[in-house]
């Protein structure tokens, strides 16, 4: 169960927020996928040249993580809506949203400027996003488990 606080949104609203965010995020990162396909289609050297392999990897990771985390947010929202005696904690809702922002953004920014096999500074956002994601997923798993134990 999420802890109550005076700033916290009700559980249903939190679930709605993650659902809304998830679907919009999915739209953004699917669009990014289309952009990447276009770069491939026109063989844009800045993206496809062997020397830009790191950029291509970073952008691909940004696309993949963004899409996947959008689905995680949707899954979290649906779980909170349809699983009885379970509600998203506010911190979990926030963590999942920021993970879905920081992880792909880190990869994306890391691919803008690259140093041979190293991505740019932006990639340092990735571990922060990863930590938030880990917290959010772990918290949901724990809360779902405790819900069953308390039955």
């Amino acid at each position: 169960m999420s802890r109550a606080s005076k700033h916290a949104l009700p559980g249903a609203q939190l679930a709605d927020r993650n659902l809304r965010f998830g679907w919009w995020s999915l739209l953004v990162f699917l669009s990014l996928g289309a952009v990447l396909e276009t770069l491939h289609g026109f063989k844009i050297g800045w993206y496809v040249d062997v020397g830009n392999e790191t950029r291509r990897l970073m952008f691909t990771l940004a696309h993949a993580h963004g899409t996947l985390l959008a689905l995680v947010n949707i899954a979290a929202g649906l779980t909170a809506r349809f699983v009885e005696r379970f509600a998203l904690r506010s911190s979990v809702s926030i963590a999942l949203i920021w993970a879905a922002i920081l992880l792909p953004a880190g990869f994306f920014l890391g691919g803008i400027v690259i140093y041979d096999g190293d991505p740019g500074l932006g990639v340092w956002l990735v571990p922060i996003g990863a930590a938030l994601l880990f917290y959010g997923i772990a918290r949901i798993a724990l809360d779902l488990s405790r819900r069953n134990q308390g039955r």
Partner: protein
Amino acid sequence: MRKLSRSWWQGLFVIATVAATIVVTLISLRDFQREVVPPENRPIQSQIAGYVSSNACRACHPGNYASWHASFHRTMTQVATPQCLPPDMDKLELAFNGREYKAERRGDKFFVRTRPESGSYGEPQQVVLVTGSHNLQILWLDTGEGRTLQQFPFGYIVAEKMWAPVTETFLIPPNVKEYYSTGAWNGACMDCHVTQGQSRFVAGNKWDSQVAEFGIACEACHSEGREHMERNRNPFRRFKIHLTTKSDPTVTNPASLKGLESGLACGQCHSVWAFNGMADKIEFNRHGAAFRPGAGDLSQRFVVQPNAPDHTEQKDFIRRTEPDFFHNRFWGDGMIRVTGREFNGVQASPCFRGGEFSCISCHEMHLDSPGQTDAKTWARTAQLKPKMDSDSACLQCHKDMTARLVAHTHHSAESSGSRCYNCHMPRTTFGLLRAMRSHQVSSPNVHESIAYGRPNACNLCHLDQTLGWAAQHLHAWYNQPVPELSEDDRTIAAAVQWILKGDAGQRALIAWGIGWESAQKIAGRDWLYPYLIYTLTDSYAAVRFDAWKSLRTLPGFSDFSFTYTAPDQTLGEAATRAYKKWLGEVRNVNAVYRRETAIDSDGRVRQDVFQRLRSARDEKPIFLAE
């Protein structure tokens, strides 16, 4: 019997799957270990000092790895595989110097059997290494003596798709039939054709040669990479370097060096070099080069510049022990005359004295420059930077020349005579069966031709003009003194003199130079046929090859077939065939021949001039040790 539960079966399935996976992994591991047992009949790649090989560099430098991979440095020496050997190797049957050779394929391995005159085929020798990939490929055979190699006496000329005796792919006196002895690869070739080679002499003619990597790989130019690799596992260190302008002290980047330090990264191989002494030679052969890119000297070795004041003792020793050493590599004034040794020219250039100029002023080893072409083209055009095949190369420094180009060159701006390279880097070096540009930047003068026999830039283009004509123009335009000239120098075209009475080195340069389109446009084509046709019978194979190649650039002869390695009688028959074709089918009956070309109005060579010049030919044996 008790019925087993479903979960029991599931557990059994998981255990069986895990067990099968372990067994398969162990089998794969055993096969993998069996494959990495190094062969004992050839030099091998091994762990040498701090060298880690290009595979280790690839992960962090994919772009640079890719451009290096596209370059011919990588394929300088390769382990022989069907992919890197010439096509149809298994059908190869050749004969040379009284011996017959037959190749055969077993799986992915190739073997050669040799039959001496009036004998039978001997034991097969495996083709283990290949040198070269885009000009000439030379194969190396195992000998049964450790890792000692023996040269297969034929080389494959890639452009012509033909095999030729190796001795006939160099400018070598015709009486020399075999040049590389058994063990020569181990004792000499591997000094430069691999990355950090160790010849490792054992005894007699037995070697245990090992290399850090076959071919010229990353660490040849950037120095050994272990420390660089290990210290840069730390991402914080890497980002500190990325975000500052400091270079990484654990690795050398020749592209950020200038002058001597930069040039020696290339010059460690692309120069005529010699050992400081026997102890250095032994040390070099045992442990590999002590030189590391970035250093200002070659450590155990030195770049041999005949006229420089350094290493006089060593150069005197060379003169005593190998009297033709300098003659076979340098013109009389010390300018390098063989290809592959470009750093000698670069170092002797006036541009080099400024301390900035080096190989990378015009070339780049990776596709770094904006606007660079595709990797394949770049590799095939000497890894030049963009536009460096034009005046832009010189205008990087000589910026003022753009405004006064015509005043300086006395040629129209679009003319080949206004191209910097043609006057200041003419094709006076020879190797790989062709003339190549000198890398010693110089100004054309007739004295170099009179005193040292080196064709000057003016007459390499104005083939139909005399040395006297060139001297007068150089005097009028640049106030150069007119050297003392013979009657022939004033009346006979320089190219005619060189191709008839020049030494083999001069003849080769002119035989190639006649095929140069710019020269043909300036000097005309009609008078060139008889000289090239005659040169098809030259005693030097390399000269014949270039005469044939140039003849094919002339109208009517583009498909003329000729085997430049054929016996003398066949060569004579081919020349007769060519002459008849020219006289009967190709000759322009309306052509007007300048008197200096020594061609009569009917298109035939003036016999008095021909005989006189031919009998005065410089027959001193020449071996251009490229």
